[in-house]
């Protein structure tokens, strides 16, 4: 997926229903350990299958920091360098486990002008083939205006 970077997205160019470019990640054993490295979350339920099963879970599952980083990637790659993520809310309703392919997506729900600023409301989520949507979320982004 291309990163917007200098190809700045402007509020006037956003249309309700627009889809944000998504991406997928295979939750391999390597990815599980990248998760620990990248989040510095050493809670064993996210990398130790025996610990996870003792707690009543079928297997290890990725943590909140990993899911948030993935959703932030969807949003920030779309909004460009001068966009501002005002709010992100997401729920861990189901799990992304080792062996799953996690797919992250987003779409534009509404746009509004507030005090001269260009606000955009998004739906963002993570899903997999085993569970469907695992991590539904909403986000509010402020985009620069074409002045």
């Amino acid at each position, binding site marked *: 997926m291309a*990163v917007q*970077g*200098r190809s700045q997205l402007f509020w006037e160019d956003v249309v309700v229903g627009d889809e944000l470019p998504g*991406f997928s*990640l295979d939750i391999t054993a390597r*990815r599980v350990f*990248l*998760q620990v*490295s*990248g*989040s*510095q*979350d*050493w*809670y064993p*339920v996210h990398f130790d299958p025996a610990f996870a*099963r*003792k*707690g*009543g*879970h079928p297997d290890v599952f990725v*943590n*909140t*920091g*990993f899911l*948030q*980083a*993935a959703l*932030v*990637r969807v949003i*920030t*790659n779309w909004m460009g*360098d*001068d966009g*501002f*993520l*005002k*709010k*992100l*809310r*997401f*729920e*861990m309703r189901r799990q992304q486990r080792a062996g799953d392919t996690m797919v992250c997506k987003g779409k534009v729900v509404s746009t509004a002008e507030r005090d001269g600023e260009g606000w955009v409301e998004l739906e963002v989520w993570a899903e997999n083939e085993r569970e469907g949507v695992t991590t539904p979320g909403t986000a509010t982004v402020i985009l620069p205006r074409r002045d």
Partner: protein
Amino acid sequence: MKEPAASTGTYDVEEVRRKYIGFETATAKGRYPVEHDAIRRHCHMVDDNNPLFLDPEHAKTTSHGAVLCPPSGWLALYFASLGPWPAVFEPLFPIVPTPGKRIVNMSQEVEWSARIKVGDHLSVRRRIVDVYQKAVSLDAEAVWIVAEAIITNQKDDEVCVIRNTMLTHRTPAEQGGVRG
């Protein structure tokens, strides 16, 4: 308060609510400023190649003038409190007594007031917003904790507020081997 046992039969959630809702920790300052390599590892875990977070040369050409920290509440909290070693996984958890010691994050909401740049020095204070019991498949008497982390920078400007809802539960063995 008497520490509750594994069985919630002795756990008085109303007493816990009275004692802990509204509790706020002192402000803790991260040991290190926001730094490149922790951001690089964070981006690497989800293959995020955004040059605004990774490339100082690109960042210099932007309106920000420096590499930004991705707007992840998790990463902000890492720089404010989880960065020091030995790591403190969940400073809130020992504060609120719960029958089960297992944790699952259920939702998170992050509201941003300002961007974070490499070199900023973050601090955090935490407060307990709610504590309640609600059944889940893992534990019919799971205890839920709603907490906020308020992240500030070196100028004492608030940069974000993170509201986290987590459940705490007992293992099947702690529930008498009924499950698992």
